[in-house]
């Protein structure tokens, strides 16, 4: 499956690099939230919380069958319905059935990456249902028919005048000034009655709690509260991994989530939703449906090399520090899941071959591991994916990604293992490159198949004097066993 057909990593990345507004926003975001989160982790009083949270996440995953059936039992006890969807299609069809049964004409949604993953909006629209995003960023993306570029700030690639123009065109309003505070007001007044009158609300799920049968949703705008309070029907979509066993686990994860996402002790709103409106309840949905989605996740769960990625709580912190995401932005990741976590999870969910560029694009600097509130080792999994691409893997159906490249590396390995041969090749290379490099130490064009390599980066020249010789010269004969001169 290709989620965003017709787009590719290279093109989207260079578009991102050329977008000044995006570059400015990314810098700001990384300076504030990325650095801020690192400082917070370093200074937090309960320094063991992250390790404990990681352990419970892994233990929960290892017992996910029990945790999910407990969750389902408790949701049903509170009068809610639970549907287990094996595939994206199953999930979409279920939502359509619920909508049809309840004569739904208007759906209000709050940001849910899972809904983008399963392609729900298109299906609802195909059934003549009006679908409105309510999160301001997502609403803007929807109006612009664009893609989100950050987990929690979907429209950071657009500036106030672009958004102002969009509102004027699509909402037929005359904005007094395209000043940031006017824009949320404009959305609020346009959407308010729709939110109050909609038939069905669709949300994601930040963390469900099996013990209580409640899902929790965090937001700052209050749109999620609207979506879960005012419509008659509430449908919540969750990936099968987004669950904690107990309230205690839930608390730790909730605090790590809001700190990691936006340096907040708590987000403005944390709402717990679950069953249906009880007798005498003044508001809340008459029907509640929880859709638990597999769509490739149980395969990840079954692979010890990748299970860890399901511990992710989608805080987006790794986006706020990643040097690659920080330059190219979110569109290049070609999926609702962007940044380092997207580079691991998208290939696993949608096909490693099709999404090969994502894991190859990351720098392996390790920053995402340092910032992750639940210490997910994304760099290790990026390497694992590259390994599968280099050598092929039957289970994940990867084929050797680039045979030419593999051949070059094979020759290199053979030559480096045979010392004199390698040195001879370097020497030849040094002389052969001279007409190309002249006196320059970096080259931006290479001939033949090497041309592509230079499309995005410069090639450093081979040194006239190889490292081994320089080492010998400096340290002479006094080398010890460890390769360091005594004294």
């Amino acid at each position, binding site marked *: 499956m290709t989620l965003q057909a017709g787009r590719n990593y290279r093109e989207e990345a260079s578009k991102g690099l050329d977008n000044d507004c995006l570059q400015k926003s990314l810098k700001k975001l990384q300076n504030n939230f990325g650095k801020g989160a690192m400082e917070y982790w370093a200074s937090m009083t309960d320094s063991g919380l992250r390790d404990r949270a990681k352990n419970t996440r892994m233990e929960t995953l290892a017992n996910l069958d029990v945790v999910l059936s407990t969750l*389902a039992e408790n949701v049903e006890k509170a009068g809610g319905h639970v549907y287990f969807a094996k595939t994206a299609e199953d999930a979409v069809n279920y939502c359509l059935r619920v909508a049809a049964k309840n004569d739904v004409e208007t759906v209000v949604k709050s940001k849910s990456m899972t809904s983008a993953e399963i392609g729900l909006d298109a299906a609802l629209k195909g059934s003549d249902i009006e679908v409105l995003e309510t999160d301001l960023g997502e609403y803007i993306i929807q109006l612009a028919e664009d893609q989100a570029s950050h987990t929690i700030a979907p429209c950071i690639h657009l500036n106030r005048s672009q958004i102002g123009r969009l509102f004027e065109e699509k909402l037929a309003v005359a904005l007094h000034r395209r000043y940031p505070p006017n824009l949320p007001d404009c959305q609020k007044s346009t959407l308010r009655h729709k939110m109050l009158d909609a038939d069905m609300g669709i949300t994601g799920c930040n963390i469900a709690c099996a013990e209580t049968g409640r899902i929790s949703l965090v937001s700052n705008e209050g749109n999620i509260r609207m979506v879960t309070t005012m419509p008659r029907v509430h449908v919540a979509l969750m990936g099968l991994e987004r669950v904690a066993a107990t309230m205690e686990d839930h608390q730790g994860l909730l605090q790590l989530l809001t700190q990691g996402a936006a340096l907040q002790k708590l987000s403005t709103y944390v709402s717990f939703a679950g069953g249906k409106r009880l007798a005498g309840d003044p508001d809340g949905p008459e029907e509640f449906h929880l859709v638990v989605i597999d769509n490739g996740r149980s395969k990840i769960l079954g692979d010890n090399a990748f299970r860890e990625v399901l511990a992710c709580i989608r805080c987006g912190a790794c986006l706020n520090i990643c040097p690659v995401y920080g330059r190219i932005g979110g569109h290049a990741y070609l999926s609702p899941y962007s940044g380092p976590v997207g580079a691991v999870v998208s290939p696993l969910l949608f096909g490693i071959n099709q999404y090969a560029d994502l894991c190859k694009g990351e720098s392996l600097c390790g920053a995402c591991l340092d910032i992750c509130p639940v210490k997910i080792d994304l760099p290790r999994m990026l390497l694992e994916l590259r390994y599968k691409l280099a050598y092929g893997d039957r289970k994940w159906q990867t084929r050797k990604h680039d045979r030419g490249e593999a051949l070059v590396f094979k020759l290199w390995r053979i030559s480096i293992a045979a010392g004199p041969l390698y040195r001879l090749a370097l020497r030849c290379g040094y002389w052969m490159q001279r007409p190309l490099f002249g006196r320059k130490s970096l080259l931006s064009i290479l001939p033949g198949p090497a041309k592509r390599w230079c499309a995005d980066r410069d090639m450093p020249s081979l040194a006239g004097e190889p490292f081994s010789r320089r080492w010998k010269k400096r340290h002479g004969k006094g080398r010890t066993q460890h390769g360091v001169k005594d004294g």
Partner: protein
Amino acid sequence: MDEKDLFLADIRKSLGYSAQDARTTQECASLFASADDAAVLERIQYRTHVEKQALLKILQENAEKINLDVQPVKSLADAATRIVEIVEKAEPEFGHTKQLIQHDDTVLAKLQLWKRFSGKAVQVHTAYAVDSQVREKSIASYVGLTAPRWAVAESATIVELGEPGRPRSTSLVPSVHIALIHLKDVLAELSEVYAMLRQQPPEHSCLFISGPSKTAEIEAHMVHGAHGPRQVHLVVVDEQLKEAEGLRGSGLFSS
């Protein structure tokens, strides 16, 4: 086998268990072990008045950072006065009439706001469970008045438990949210709320509110009142203080 059984069987297979045999919570008892809350509950129960005042101070400091307005008062009468001031200062955001909706709560009823507002063109509604027009009244109101269960000093959070007479929308749909709480219900940190919730799991809804609704979606500009209230005021009543000597002028009170 229905879709749930097949789904869970797949998970069991992935985890290396037999696909057929369902497992139970006993098989992962440590994961579901309940937290020992005795110490936390005792701490809450035996907290002294002075300690609670210290919590109020922390609450005020943290509230300031998130634009939550905290107003300590000495009596319910003072609380009513303060609420009237807030209501009179606020302007309706949608429409022109001035209406207020309050939770059906004994303490809020004691404020007798309808008396305070008589002749002032502010209409006071109460969200009685039997009233079928609560929804319309909430939408028409520009101020929502609630009596939350707890407040949390550490994160400046208001904890609302919904039930008949206490709609969730009262703290959401109006542009101004005023919450009234007694000092005894101010807790130190979130773990205390979780411990209390474990003691008495809420049957209906539960909600944490930390400050007014906000968005920083456009060029990282902070704007309050995105979809929820643009102002949130927390009035904290400390009746013991009237009698307590020497505590006046401690700086806690703004009047």
